């Protein structure tokens, strides 16, 4: 009676599914968030009768085998890296990426992380930092005397200093792209890390190198679609209930066996 264990794999897979969906919904309003999706695969099959095994000396054979599966497993939770909608904020240090690229962030431990969240701030020293306070790589320093900061679509940061009439260039924002964006490791704080599966980061200048371009005064919203998430949640919940019903059915069958006299 494998049904008990098979149905329990179904229940744990749906539990995982609901976890992924609830994280998506919780991050519906997170800047630059990319939704994840649980992917399932069936487990091994026990071949009780193999298709094509012969049933007589005359070469007759079994047209279809007898296969008993053993349940389901969650194989991965790839992120759907589609473009989120951009929302106008009119803040001069808000930048949205249109395209494939990620901003590079210097972590305190020396590693480089990647983010789509372009809600930048200035540190007390004038460094351009993320909302968590990590510096942007390559570093851009905007002095206190700067009045208005302009970020062009190709990533050039310029500012007017000391009421000059010509803007001064402060630095160049760069973006990184990956062959397999879904293979990035999520770090939290809207940050991602490079992995062996994502491939190495290819750093480029916006508007060239296929990394996309920048939009000042806008933020990229999350790409979570509430309607599909709720529909997925309902489907996951019902699937969980039906698997639970299979367990109780199998249990009742065993009960009727144990009551045999």
């Amino acid at each position: 009676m494998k049904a008990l264990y098979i149905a329990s794999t179904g229940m744990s897979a749906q539990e995982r599914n609901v976890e992924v969906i609830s994280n998506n919904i919780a991050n519906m309003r997170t800047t630059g968030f990319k939704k994840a999706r649980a992917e399932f695969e069936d487990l091994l099959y026990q071949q009780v009768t193999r298709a094509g095994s012969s049933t007589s000396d005359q070469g007759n054979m079994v047209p279809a085998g007898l296969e008993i599966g053993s349940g389901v497993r969650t194989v991965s939770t790839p992120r759907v890296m589609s473009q989120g909608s951009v929302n106008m904020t009119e803040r001069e240090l808000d930048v949205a990426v249109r395209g494939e690229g990620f901003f590079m962030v210097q972590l305190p431990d020396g590693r480089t992380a990647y983010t789509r969240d372009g809600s930048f701030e200035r540190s007390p020293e004038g460094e351009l930092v993320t909302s968590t306070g990590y510096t942007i790589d390559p570093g851009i320093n905007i002095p206190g005397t700067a009045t208005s900061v302009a970020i062009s679509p190709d990533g050039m940061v310029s500012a007017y200093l000391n009421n000059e009439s010509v803007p001064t260039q402060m630095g160049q924002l760069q973006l990184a792209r990956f062959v397999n964006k879904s293979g990035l490791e999520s770090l939290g704080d809207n940050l991602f890390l490079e992995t062996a599966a994502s491939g190495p980061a290819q750093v480029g200048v916006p508007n060239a190198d296929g990394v996309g371009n920048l939009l000042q005064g806008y933020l990229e919203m999350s790409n979570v679609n509430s309607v599909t998430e709720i529909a997925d949640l309902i489907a996951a919940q019902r699937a969980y209930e039906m698997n639970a019903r299979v367990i109780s059915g199998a249990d009742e069958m065993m009960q009727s066996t144990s009551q045999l006299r």
Partner: protein
Amino acid sequence: MIENAQLISLSRQIALQRQTDVVANNMANINTTGFKGEQVLFEEYVMPVARDRDFPRLDQPLSYVQDWATIHDLSGGAMVQTGSELDVGLNGDGFFAVQTPAGERWTKAGSFQLSANGTLVDASGNPVLGEGGPIQFGPEETGILIASDGSISTSAGQKGRLRLVEFTDPQALTREGNNLWAGGTPAAATGTRAMQGFVEKSNVSGVAEMAEMIRVQRAYESAASLASKQDELRRSAIQRLGDTNA
């Protein structure tokens, strides 16, 4: 022949237990991309019995139940729009071909990814085969477009075509787990449409499986009660016949 009645109901119970396993597996995979449900087929196994023409009425042959095959329900599952450019749903009888360490395998699960070096792979990391082998994307390529005939193009032009295969006898395919199917003689698929941005969901119907589960459960209970009735019958027979009048 009371023992025979018990053995026949035992054969029924064993077959029903296996059927529960199949129902449970279908139910566990109700959200698995590209999963196809299974159904158990039963047959009568007629047991030769002693025949003696001298009896006024001939012996009835005994028939046991045997589960002899599971058939694949290959009907299409629901197509769900995901918006991911590497998701491909197959509308029709065709399968994708993937390269595994054990050789070519077939799958209906079109939720693909790119590997670190830009190869199109399935969820387990097996390369997806095009008509000229695995499909490779360069680091600078953007805008992957998959046409309904499976041909792939990007900003760098044509990248080849997904290998879609179909089988004259898909029931002879065996399931390997990991959404993969093995065996069969593949032929180029005709009339199968690839839909980019969609995945094919499992074709398991919750209502039908639930009804099947209840039916199996009740049939099992009635076989169990038949067995215990037979037991009672035998006991009372022994008691009655063994009661010697001293």
